[in-house]
């Protein structure tokens, strides 16, 4: 018994002292919004690129920004562009690299309703402000003629942590609802008037899926993968649009250009086929990476991501980047030293 203990202890110590094997290891943390495609990318990149292991922990956009600022990860990921204040706190400046486009949908679990619900921005704002409390409220019924809505309470689910998904969602609500804009505003972390918090896109999806009467906002892929119904939203042109590859791509095409540093919002964009809650999502890469091997691996990944990687977007319910963004980004890669 004692011998077994000693041997296993020795084995563990020996294993720990083996320096991280020859494959390059990179650590990143950040948004859950793009986590499905990032985990696919990093798996593919490892196979295609001599075993480079990019370990990505999906903790939320806020965590990605914080950990990058602290220097405890090699790169971050966020659906909310860093604010000027946050960028000022960084010892080594970070660059924003858009990776994919995606949409945020309103998922719901309404007992007895199998049809796809239609919602307007004001209705959603009213629900999240706590003003619309039941599913058969007149405002919801007005847009859903012919659907029998029960009198169940609406159980609002939102993010508990600092989230880029929250930022994009509240950014949209602030644009379509003056009441939301003045009372709550747009931010990664707001003071919610109603509802319960769940961690990550995963948590919100899980809670809505299991709770009759619940409503929540998640990235499109989470809704489809988990077979949770999501609503059509009324866009700026007055049409009810389903979130899809086409409608999200249209949002990017119809928005004004991103700033030179690639920050920007494309919510509530004009156009008949636009999905209103669409967004870019970014990788945050430091401008200076002292470890040459790490830098090469990251730069190679960015190149690959902008090239072969983009074809993974559509099957996973994202949309690839517009070509002109890709071209501009390839130039920005040169700024990573």
């Amino acid at each position: 018994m004692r011998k077994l203990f000693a041997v296993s202890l020795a084995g563990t110590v020996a294993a720990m002292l083996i320096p991280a094997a020859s494959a390059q290891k990179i650590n990143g943390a950040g948004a859950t919004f793009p986590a499905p495609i990032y985990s696919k990318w990093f798996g593919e990149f490892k196979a295609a690129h001599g075993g480079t292991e990019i370990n990505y922990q999906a903790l939320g956009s806020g965590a990605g920004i914080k950990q990058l600022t602290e220097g405890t990860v090699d790169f971050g990921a966020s659906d909310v562009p860093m604010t000027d204040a946050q960028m000022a706190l960084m010892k080594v400046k970070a660059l924003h690299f858009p990776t994919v486009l995606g949409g945020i949908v309103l998922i719901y679990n309404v007992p007895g309703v199998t049809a796809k619900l239609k919602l307007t921005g004001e209705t959603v704002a009213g629900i999240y402000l706590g003003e619309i409390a039941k599913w058969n409220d007149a405002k919801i019924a007005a847009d859903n003629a012919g659907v029998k809505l029960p009198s169940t309470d609406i159980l609002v689910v939102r993010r508990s942590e600092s989230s880029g998904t929250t930022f994009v969602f509240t950014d949209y609500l602030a644009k379509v609802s003056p009441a939301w804009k003045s009372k709550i505003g747009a931010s990664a972390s707001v003071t919610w008037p109603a509802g319960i918090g769940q961690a990550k896109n995963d948590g919100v999806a899980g809670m809505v899926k299991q709770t009759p009467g619940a409503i929540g906002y998640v990235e499109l892929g989470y809704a489809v993968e988990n077979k949770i119904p999501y609503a059509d939203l009324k866009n700026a042109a007055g049409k009810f649009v389903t979130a899809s590859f086409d409608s999200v791509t249209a949002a990017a095409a119809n928005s004004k250009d991103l700033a030179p540093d690639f920050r920007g919002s494309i919510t509530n964009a004009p156009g008949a086929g636009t999905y209103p809650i669409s967004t870019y999502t970014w990788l945050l890469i430091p401008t200076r990476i002292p470890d040459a091997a790490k830098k090469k691996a990251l730069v190679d990944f960015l190149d690959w991501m902008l090239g072969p990687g983009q074809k993974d977007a559509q099957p996973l319910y994202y949309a690839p980047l517009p070509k002109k963004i890709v071209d501009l980004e390839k130039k920005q890669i040169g700024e990573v030293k």
Partner: protein
Amino acid sequence: MKSLNRRRNAINNVMLTLTGVCAVVTSSTLILVLGYLLYNGGKSLNLSFFTNLPVGQGETGGGIANAIVGSAEMVGLAALIGIPIGLMAGVYLSEFSGKTFGFLIRYTADLLNGVPSIVIGLFAWTVVVVPMKTFSALAGGIALSLMLIPITARNTEQFLQEVPRTMREGALALGASRWRAIATVIIPAARKGIMTGIILGVARISGETAPLLFTALGNQFWNTGLNQPTASLPVVIYTYATAPYESWHQQAWAAGLVLLGLVLVANISARLIVSRGASLPK
């Protein structure tokens, strides 16, 4: 008078039965927990579960191999750091300490023992992760060792104290110096209890999640290096349980079963060791 007695007897029977119900309810909780895990987790236990790495988010398949290794690594590191410190401190408290300093160390050890595990995680983040500028298995191991040290110290002290005076005095009478008496007579006499305490302590830290959240973080790939983030069994259970994917739920159940199994085996064996070797000559 008779009716009063009848009433008192009735109350007597009812209340005593109630206490029996309480006892049954509380002691069956463990059986329910174990049963539930067996039922839900048992079906996902297969060889690939133990040998595969996790796959992409939402995909099926994948396993917890790196989590098991990561947990073993960090618990091993914690044991490497914590057991010697705890043992030596326990020896000090039992054999050498004076009144005031002994009280101080005991109080501090109990204090450290009572620190919530999330606060230990905060501390480890501040003093290991931030200076190292990376999440790491080292930070996780150090956080866990902080929880192991006080348990080991107090437990060692307790079992050393139980070694009868006759043994100590006998050793000294035969001409042994203090340290020889301690090393060759007293510690061996108490070894069953000390080992039990160590096993229980190690079992406890292997189930801890909170200290690992901000220290070891997590890793989809294999990790053996001490300075890299590492997956661990409890954190994987937490992540998978709170996700919406059915495949991840299955894995959470199975991983939970593995973890609980290990912890229970350790606890039961520790108790068996102590109960069998309990009687020392007085």
